[in-house]
């Protein structure tokens, strides 16, 4: 467990929690990324404006961090391009079909004691564990 970083994980998690509270208290919305992104693609006008601004905030976070921090942002993608496309299609299709992802169901839904969000979070975690076990240990794909 030499990669375990509990302190930065807790601080980062607190930022995410604060983000969700600000969104709910200010604009009455759930800070669920797949819902915001999917809505930004399909909505117009006022509904699209705040969604695009939220997404711009995500991108701005990377630029701001790169500007103020001396440590670079590490991104180690291990999957091949073909697998990344499959992964992207599944994540896009699945999060919209299942009405949410790690943020909407995981961070916000659990705080609302939503039965649907508990079930969704347990399901995507379980399938994530199984998928990594199958690809890394049974098939040894190295993805």
């Amino acid at each position, binding site marked *: 467990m030499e990669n375990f970083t509990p302190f930065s994980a*807790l601080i980062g998690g607190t930022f995410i*929690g604060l983000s969700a509270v600000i969104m709910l208290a200010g604009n009455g919305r759930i800070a669920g990324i797949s819902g915001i992104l999917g809505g930004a693609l399909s909505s117009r006008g006022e509904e699209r404006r705040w*969604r695009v601004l939220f997404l711009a905030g995500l991108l701005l976070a990377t630029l701001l961090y790169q500007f103020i921090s001396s440590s670079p942002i590490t991104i180690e993608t291990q999957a091949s391009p073909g697998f990344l496309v499959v992964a992207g299609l*599944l*994540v896009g299709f699945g999060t919209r079909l299942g009405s949410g992802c790690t943020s909407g169901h995981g961070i916000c839904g659990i*705080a609302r004691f939503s039965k649907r969000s508990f079930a969704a979070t347990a399901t995507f975690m379980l399938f994530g564990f199984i*998928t990594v076990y199958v690809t890394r240990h049974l098939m040894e794909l190295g993805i």
Partner: protein
Amino acid sequence: MSIATDQKSQESTFAHSAVALLSGLLFGLGLIISGMVNPGKVIGFLDLAGNWDPSLIFVMGGGVAVTTATFWLVLRRERPLFEKKFFLPTKADLDGRLLIGAALFGIGWGVGGLCPGPAITALATLDPSVVLFVGAMLLGMVLQNLVAE
């Protein structure tokens, strides 16, 4: 519309926009600080049989601690600060769409190590793998929208 209400609505639109931008910024910084923008770190959590990295539990734990401690207080208000009402999911029961969707998402998450938040945040690095993933993810969302109609 009177000048006073017009000005009030402009202020409200500005505040609404500022909240959305700030919320996105904090969310993105949280993902970067916690290392969750790195697919390698997420796979490290999902790889129970490998060199397991439990960090993701602490990220979700920190986030859920803040939301659980505050959401109930916020929702006691009649309405949010800059909107007429709260927009909350209305469905209460489990259904096939929810579980199949979550399962498909979980498989994609396990293959790529990326979920929507980190993918969009990391997009600003212009890492080619992330750009490819986000393109496919957007296509998946559009396809789901077409199938639903």
